[in-house]
């Protein structure tokens, strides 16, 4: 409480240096010029650091803290659920992919067989002399189906003659 007696007022008016020494300890820049440091001796400006670190006092703040914790848990639960869903989707994708692969493999079987037969044909041709490729010779099936027996007789006679001539 400020002393408002006449001698004290007089002393403040005529002895300002004493008062200034007092006001210089305050962090209020307006204390000396405006209010002379008589009324506002305390630091009325709040520090900016105080707002960033609120103290958890009171039921409202405690309930806010609990709510924030429960919110974190919900978000964490959602995160886990999303991970689980992602895993399920990944598993389904893998299963579907495997089924597709099996389908592809089945559908490619005929192609593989054709490629195999083509390879065998090429291999057979490569191992056959050129002269035999262009003249396949006489097959037994061809002779077995012959109806003109005169032709068949001539065919056998000619080839037997060739063999006997070479022997």
């Amino acid at each position, binding site marked *: 409480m400020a002393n408002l007696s006449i001698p004290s007022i007089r002393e403040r008016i005529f002895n300002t240096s004493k008062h200034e020494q007092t006001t210089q300890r305050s962090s209020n820049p307006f204390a000396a010029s405006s209010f002379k440091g008589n009324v506002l001796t305390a630091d009325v400006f709040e520090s900016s650091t105080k707002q960033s670190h609120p103290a958890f006092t009171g039921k409202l703040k405690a309930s806010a803290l609990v709510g924030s914790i429960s919110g974190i848990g919900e978000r964490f639960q959602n995160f886990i659920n999303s991970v689980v869903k992602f895993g399920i989707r990944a598993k389904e994708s893998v299963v579907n992919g495997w089924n597709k692969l099996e389908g592809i493999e089945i559908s490619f079987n005929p192609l593989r067989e054709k490629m195999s037969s083509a390879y065998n044909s090429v291999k057979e041709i490569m191992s056959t002399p050129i*002269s*035999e490729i262009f003249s396949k010779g006489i097959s037994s099936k061809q002779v077995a189906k012959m109806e003109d027996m005169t032709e*068949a007789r001539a065919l056998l006679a000619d080839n*037997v003659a060739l*063999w006997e001539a070479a022997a």
Partner: protein
Amino acid sequence: MTDKKIIKNVTNIIEGLGQNPNSESVTILEDIGTNSKVDAIRELTSRALVKRNEHDSLKVVITNKGKGINDMSTIVAMSTINELLSLEDKTEAMKVLTDTVEKHSDEEVRDNARSVKALMALS
């Protein structure tokens, strides 16, 4: 050295005639194949006639002197006998052999037929 292509052609023609349903094919094989001077051709012809497993074709290799089981070449004769022994249905062959043993005029042919018949009975 005989060309492989000629050997293959003769082999295929003889095999084809042996499978040809026309009975004329037996006559062709008898006239050309069994009278060849080449042992291998006679052997191929005899085996084809036995595989045909018909009365006429079996008669050619069993009852004719110098052909089939009566061939001068041991290889041709033994090969023909082996083919007879390999037949699944030996009924017609046994019938021809029995007739040959009983009715053929040549003794050597009868003796050969008797021996082959004994072998076939045991097989």
